[in-house]
């Protein structure tokens, strides 16, 4: 699972959950993969992503040190930030771990890079 995917996930589908966002991230195994950098695509993605949630996720896996508290308005001028965003969004691969619903604490396993969000009917 990439952090890009994580940024769009929510446990809102659980009964009694209103927001379910962002899911807390617990990682026991992760890897770095080489993915081709495309500045334009990253900039574009940031207009769709929730930066706060991304930064929180990065903090939880100790990968937020090079990320600014807030994104600058002229993001296209900051190649270093775009590259760092590219790294956290696409290069970090979460292999094993858990996702946790912020409202209920319900945990979902991540195994072999694939998060499993299946729940019982009554949940």
């Amino acid at each position, binding site marked *: 699972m990439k952090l890009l995917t994580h940024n769009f996930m929510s446990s809102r*589908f659980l009964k009694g959950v209103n927001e379910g966002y962002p899911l807390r991230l617990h990682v026991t195994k992760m890897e770095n993969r080489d993915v081709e950098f495309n500045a334009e695509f990253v900039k574009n993605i940031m207009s769709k992503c929730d930066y706060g949630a991304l930064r929180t996720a990065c903090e939880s896996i100790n990968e937020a040190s090079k990320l600014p508290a807030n994104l600058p308005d002229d993001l296209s001028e900051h190649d270093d930030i775009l590259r760092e965003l590219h790294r956290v969004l696409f290069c970090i691969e979460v292999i094993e771990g858990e996702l946790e619903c912020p409202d209920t604490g319900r945990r979902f396993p991540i195994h072999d890079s694939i998060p499993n969000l299946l729940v019982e009917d009554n949940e």
Partner: protein
Amino acid sequence: MYFSDEKERPVGSRYEGSKLLRKIHKSHEQLKRHNPDVVISEEPTQNLLNLRRFFRPLDPGCQFFVYPNKRSYSFIQCSDAYLATKIRKEFNGFVHPKLKSSHQPFVISFVKNVPEKGIAETFRPDGLAVLDNYISKDEEKTLTDFIFSHPKVKMLKHRAVLHFGHEFDYDTNSAFRETEPIPEIINDLVKKLKYDGYISAWPDQITANIYEPGHGIPSHYDTHSAFEDPVVSLSMLSDVVMEFKDGANSARIAPVLLPRRSLCLIQGESRYRWKHGIVNRKHDVDPRTNRVIPRQMRVSLTLRKIRTVPCKCPWKEFCDWDREGEMGVPKSGNEAERLEGSYVADVYENIASHFDETRHSSWKAVKKFIDDIPRGSVMYDVGCGNGKYLIAQDGLIKIGCDMCNGLCVIAAKKGCHVMRADALKLPFREKSADAVICIAVLHHIATLERRRQLVEEILRVLKPGGCACVTVWSMDQSHSEYAKMRGNKDENEAIGKGQNPGKTEDLKKNKAERLKVHDGKDFEQQDVLVPWVIDQENKTFLRYYHVFREGEAEELMHSVDGCQMVSVEKEQGNYIFVFRKS
């Protein structure tokens, strides 16, 4: 080779010299390839290569070995070398006047031997047994004399029947009404069957069928709910080939020779899952040797035990009883979930890698939908399967989910962003997608309420104004490749008066509420179990489908708040519809 549409040849013409030699050479090459064990002979033998049925007038005793649709040659075994020589002299290189002008001339060679084995893979469904020479010639005569002289022999459309114990009802394919008591002569046979251990219970429905040469019986199941296992059948007076057809795949046919005086035991899988029937024709091809065998008048005696408690066979999907609702069309959400679990989710886990090997091409309308999404948009693929719509690097942010772990693993290995999730509980943020695709998923959802939920769930994660593209199977497959592929299937008829089984009101009602295995022809009802066959492993999995009738997608979209219909198209037996979140 007999047939070629390319050239017109004057009938009655004769090929000679080098032209004929070339044709003979071509035939020999082909024969060597297919039957290396057959030795071509320069000297006359009794075996001639190639035939037509008009060889018979010259040698009434000749035997034919044919390979319909498989080989362009045949063998004739003549009574002696003299007659074979005569036939070759008469017909070699000759376009017989009785042939069409598009036919090739006969090309005839001598061979020292004919192939010993047939070319068809002689497989049999599990549980089927044929015991040769089960009765003696004397027993055969006594039994058939008794049947022929019985005053109550009744004519059906293509054959005559006589019932003992209980009368077989051809409208319901069951037997409830008592009729002629089982005569002593048949009881003797029953005693032998019991003594030999082939049956345990005393049969109480016995049918004698008298077939004229050329007549047969349509492919059918012996109704599960009506009769116990096994069904036992004795063949008399003539050999015949009975065809067994897989109930989950009518293209899988096992021709089985039932020799005269043999006993056929149809039990287990062959009784519950396979249909059996006899094709209307005057000759059969022995599947073991490819020898042509003419049919004589044939009498069969079928012995069955009427079932008094519900069928509990393991082939429940092929049963006519709904198994106390287990095989019924689901009415509640719980029933639907159970069905989807066993007949969708579990099946995809089992077939994931085979599914991946076979799923690459995209629907045109889906591709167009994706191409029209502005670059940089967020698109979710609900039920992404092997990730075929996620792979392309096309400037979209694409995330998929699927219930099947095996398919998620396959898609993830291709670099797709995927997660395991239920389409009715999408783990995406509300109003976060510019577009959603949901390909071949909705038809796996078993109730209207749940199908509506899926549309609502897609709308929930879409941004206002965002669009979704959803595809489902259509009930009408008449113009699809799938139908073309399966187009050469014969019709499934009832065994009685040319009517379909299950005509009484009760059975009719039962049928509509029960899931039915789709055997590759037209869909007869909307809720069906469709086989997925893995040939290499000889395995069949049944997937649940709710196939959509015309207008159903529109009704569904109209019934959901905030769902704005954009378009409905039909492509290759699929409905592809697009809706917008208002």
